[in-house]
């Protein structure tokens, strides 16, 4: 038997350095674009420069004659086999959805849509030949503004649909029976309380993963093999089969090293389908790798909503109702989960608060822009932003301290489990504890005192404090809930454990990491479960041949669903081993105790290990009657509930009232993500999440001009923050274990992004609220902030919308919107 290291301590909770790093820090990486196969040719994509047009002709003659060119294809060439790109989330029975060809055939509906492809010996030759393709476009009216798109007689993105409205999805607590009627609550508050209305704009964002997308398709084997920089190799295989009618068992999908995703690689892309079809037709391996500007213009975008909110409360601050009306920009097509993204937010606007009446309605709208879809948080950042901004607005209106207003309304720790007005049951949480710790880390009282001093001194640089007490739903998801939301698949995850004769372990997971560190975390989990050393565990993932079954990684689901599947598989291994161990020890199974890999006979010093049992099973010379010679086990876990991480984020900003420049002075977050497998990884997830949420608040926006051209199509224009643009984060955790899984874990991947955006914007507004500013549109660039300040001073026209209604005699601390506040 080979030496197997003894596990010394419990792995769970250890800050293990990552297994993944060794290859990543030394350049031994397996990005899809690194692959080279014998005979491989390269594909380049010609994209529409116009947002909406009929394709009247495409001349590919010159391109076909160019040096090194193997083939040129247009949409017409693939029309019979390309099918329509899948949308797996038809949110309502009457949802309107257009055909979504991978390669445009007759019409383009957004600038960046693929219209032709060249295949050549080298990528450079393929790109050269793109310039020789001559496409004639007949311009159509461009639809960009959601409200205009919904107006009577509006120009249509898809004339054949007869409307730009894709769907309306609504939830009403009075209709469902979970609460009261919000209109009644608003009427009541008008008479005897406070009603605050605001309109917020969730600007369009781009996921901007660092590794550009890449696809390699090898059609030469019996199983056609597709490598892709994807988050979802398993879903992709099923969708290729369903979309193209290819037998599923003839397709193998591999996600090798994948350089980030953030939802942006949760997609079945046109380029995957095109590369698949072209390679199959040519009978040769084909590679497509995008450039960054291609990625920004054609990979799906995120957010892009207009949010109209009305919140009403009693004068003592008790919230009595919340009404949410959204317009959500789908872009030109419905991609994999496009329609469902804003709907995920529907359950989160009530957040951590006990809101007795709630109405949510979301209208999904087509425009001639790049399709939107999941981006880190997907619907929940929008919801959290809106409710946390509204709580600050309500506090200002009531003249209440904003944390006190929150505390007055939030669910107390002794009230869990708590079923919310939007029908979710929060299993656990402790908002008091997280908030108390955050206040302490942040020196909340000290900063409030400084803020008062600087206001009194009329400091040109004002200090603002922003709060975000958030929760989110993640760990997507219980299959029955997804079914009730008309999602096209389940939310389970698969894992398998293979016990090798030498006591080493292979763990197969359906989760598909792209930077998270699952190889490390899963090894820690299995080490504890089976009593094997961390280094004796190998995690296999991202290849439908080795990891044949899975639902992949998104929605902060990997640990809470996939990790639990690993636990369940390990439990089955132990149960199988127990029978054999009892036989080996000549004891009754009932007399065996098991602890971290070791079976002992109760009351004796006799024992054996799972590793020893694995060897005995391998030999299979002497097994109990009816026991098959294998400990290998698999499990498919379907959670009973989402997980609900929460936390309190506090941000202090310095706002220069003369220039509009914002700098983050300090940022403290206390997150409760349940129990923690690896604090190093969890902290890293929080840091990265904060960076992306702060980036929405301050820097990033996908901007289109009036012709529908993306003008932020490079990283020089789309402002992904650098190290100098972000502050040091002070982070800590409270731990309230989830009660719905055996590890007590909750998701962490999206929490930082969801929580941070409103904390920053609330801080900016808090710095200048005394000047009459009530909103600043994101991203809060110096110009936007400067304009908001000057609009409040009555010096320039404001672009911010909003109104406040108060009952007669009310309005303590309220802002006079007619006359611009304090000045």
């Amino acid at each position: 038997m080979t030496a197997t290291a003894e596990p010394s301590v419990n792995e769970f909770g250890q800050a293990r350095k990552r297994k993944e790093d060794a290859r990543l820090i030394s350049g031994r990486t397996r990005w899809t674009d690194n692959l080279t196969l014998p005979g491989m040719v390269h594909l380049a994509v010609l994209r529409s420069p116009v947002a909406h047009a009929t394709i009247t002709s495409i001349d590919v003659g010159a391109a076909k004659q160019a040096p090194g060119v193997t083939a040129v294809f247009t949409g017409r060439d693939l029309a019979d086999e390309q099918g329509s790109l899948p949308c797996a989330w038809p949110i309502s029975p009457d949802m309107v959805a257009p055909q979504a060809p991978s390669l445009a055939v007759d019409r383009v509906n957004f600038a960046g849509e693929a219209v032709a492809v060249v295949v050549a010996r080298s990528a450079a030759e393929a790109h050269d030949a793109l310039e020789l393709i001559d496409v004639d476009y007949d311009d159509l009216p461009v639809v960009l503004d959601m409200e205009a798109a919904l107006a009577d007689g509006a120009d249509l993105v898809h004339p054949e649909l007869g409307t730009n409205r894709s769907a309306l999805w609504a939830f009403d607590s009075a209709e469902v029976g979970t609460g009261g009627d919000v209109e009644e609550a608003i009427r009541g508050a008008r008479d005897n309380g406070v009603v605050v209305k605001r309109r917020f704009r969730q600007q369009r964002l781009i996921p901007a993963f660092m590794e550009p997308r890449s696809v390699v398709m090898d059609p030469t084997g019996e199983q056609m093999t597709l490598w892709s920089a994807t988050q979802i190799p398993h879903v992709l295989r099923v969708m290729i089969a369903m979309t193209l009618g290819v037998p599923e068992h003839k397709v193998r999908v591999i996600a090798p090293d994948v350089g980030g995703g953030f939802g942006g690689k949760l997609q079945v892309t046109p380029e995957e389908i095109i590369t698949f079809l072209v390679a199959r037709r040519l009978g040769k391996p084909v590679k497509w790798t995008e450039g960054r500007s291609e990625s920004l213009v054609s990979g799906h975008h995120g957010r892009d909503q207009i949010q109209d909110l009305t919140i009403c409360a009693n004068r003592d601050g008790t919230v009595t109702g919340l009404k949410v009306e959204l317009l959500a920009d789908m872009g030109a097509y419905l991609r994999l989960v496009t329609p469902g993204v804003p709907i995920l937010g529907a359950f989160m606007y009530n957040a951590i608060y006990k809101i007795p009446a709630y109405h949510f309605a979301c209208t999904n709208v087509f425009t001639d822009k790049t399709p939107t879809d999941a981006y880190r948080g997907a619907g929940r950042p929008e919801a959290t932003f809106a409710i946390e901004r509204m709580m600050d607005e309500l506090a200002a209106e009531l003249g209440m301290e904003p944390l006190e207003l929150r505390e007055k309304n939030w669910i107390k720790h002794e009230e869990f489990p708590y079923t919310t007005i939007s029908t979710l049951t929060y299993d656990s949480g402790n908002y008091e504890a997280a908030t108390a710790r955050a206040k302490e880390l942040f020196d909340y009282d000290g900063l409030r005192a400084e803020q008062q001093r600087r206001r009194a001194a009329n400091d040109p640089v004002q200090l603002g404090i922003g709060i975000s007490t958030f929760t989110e739903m993640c760990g997507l998801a219980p299959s029955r809930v997804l079914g009730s939301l008309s999602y096209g698949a389940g939310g389970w995850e698969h894992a398998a454990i293979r016990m090798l004769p030498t006591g080493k372990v292979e763990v197969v997971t359906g989760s598909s990491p792209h930077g998270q560190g699952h190889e490390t975390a899963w090894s820690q989990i299995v080490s504890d479960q089976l009593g094997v050393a961390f280094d004796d565990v190998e995690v296999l993932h991202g290849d439908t041949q080795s990891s044949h079954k899975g639902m992949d990684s998104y929605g902060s689901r990997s640990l809470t669903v996939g990790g639990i599947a690993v636990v369940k598989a390990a439990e089955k291994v132990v149960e199988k081993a127990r029978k054999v161990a009892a036989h080996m020890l000549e004891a009754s199974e009932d007399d065996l105790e098991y602890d971290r890999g070791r079976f002992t006979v109760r009351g004796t010093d006799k024992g054996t290990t799972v590793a020893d049992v694995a060897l005995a099973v391998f030999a299979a010379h002497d097994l109990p009657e009816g026991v098959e010679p294998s400990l290998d086990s698999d499990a498919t876990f379907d959670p009973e509930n989402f997980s609900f991480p929460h936390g309190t984020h506090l941000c202090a900003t310095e706002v220069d009232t003369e220039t509009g420049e914002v700098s983050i002075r300090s940022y403290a977050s206390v997150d409760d993500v349940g129990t923690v497998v690896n604090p190093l990884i969890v902290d890293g997830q929080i840091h990265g999440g904060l960076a992306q949420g702060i980036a929405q608040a301050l820097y990033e926006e996908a901007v289109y001009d009036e012709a529908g051209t993306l003008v932020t199509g490079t990283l020089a224009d789309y402002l992904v923050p650098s190290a100098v643009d972000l502050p040091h984060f002070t982070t800590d955790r409270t731990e309230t274990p989830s009660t719905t899984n055996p590890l007590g874990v909750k998701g962490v991947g999206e929490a930082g992004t969801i929580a941070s955006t409103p904390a920053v914007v609330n801080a900016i507004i808090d710095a200048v609220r005394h000047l009459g500013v009530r909103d600043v549109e994101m991203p809060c660039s110096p110009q936007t902030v400067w304009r908001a300040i000057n609009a409040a001073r009555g010096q320039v026209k404001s672009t911010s919308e909003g109104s406040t209604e108060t009952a007669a005699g009310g309005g303590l601390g309220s802002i006079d919107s007619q006359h611009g506040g304090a000045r």
Partner: protein
Amino acid sequence: MTRITVTVDGVKYTDEVEPRTLLVHYLREQVGKTGTVVGCDTSNCGACTVHLDGQSVKSCSVFAVQADGSEVTTIEGLARDGRLHPVQQAFHDNHALQCGFCTPGMIMQAIDLLGDNPNPDDEQVRHGLEGNLCRCTGYQNIVKAVRDAAGKMSPGAGPAAEQVSSQARSGVSGGGQ
């Protein structure tokens, strides 16, 4: 086509390249140094950073022909005798990477930064890495890693520091001027 001779990670290569070929494409496609990656097309992201005659460059903004007669060090040429460069080690120790796509460029730039300023504070590290984008980490652990490496590479800090000085002598560390 133009004939160039370039020493990459200590090995001399003579190749024909198109005049328009970027150094990064030469490294990846002709020399096989796929550890160096392409993250953008506007020289913003820094993922392709390598050392050219001891100085960090974004290899997407250098033509291969400009490297003729030069020495190039990539992420693949940093480790010595199976030992990681202290900056590589620090990135691992401080969880300064997640997806790892920016990491080769980030490490090469960090080494260059420490050559210019062996003992930077947080702000100096952040400014020194301004041209390298990371989407995963929020930079916090990258800053921590670079300062950790600085401590381990400082004079008298032991074997790790010797490793760097030996590289500086051979002209491939990129840390020195």
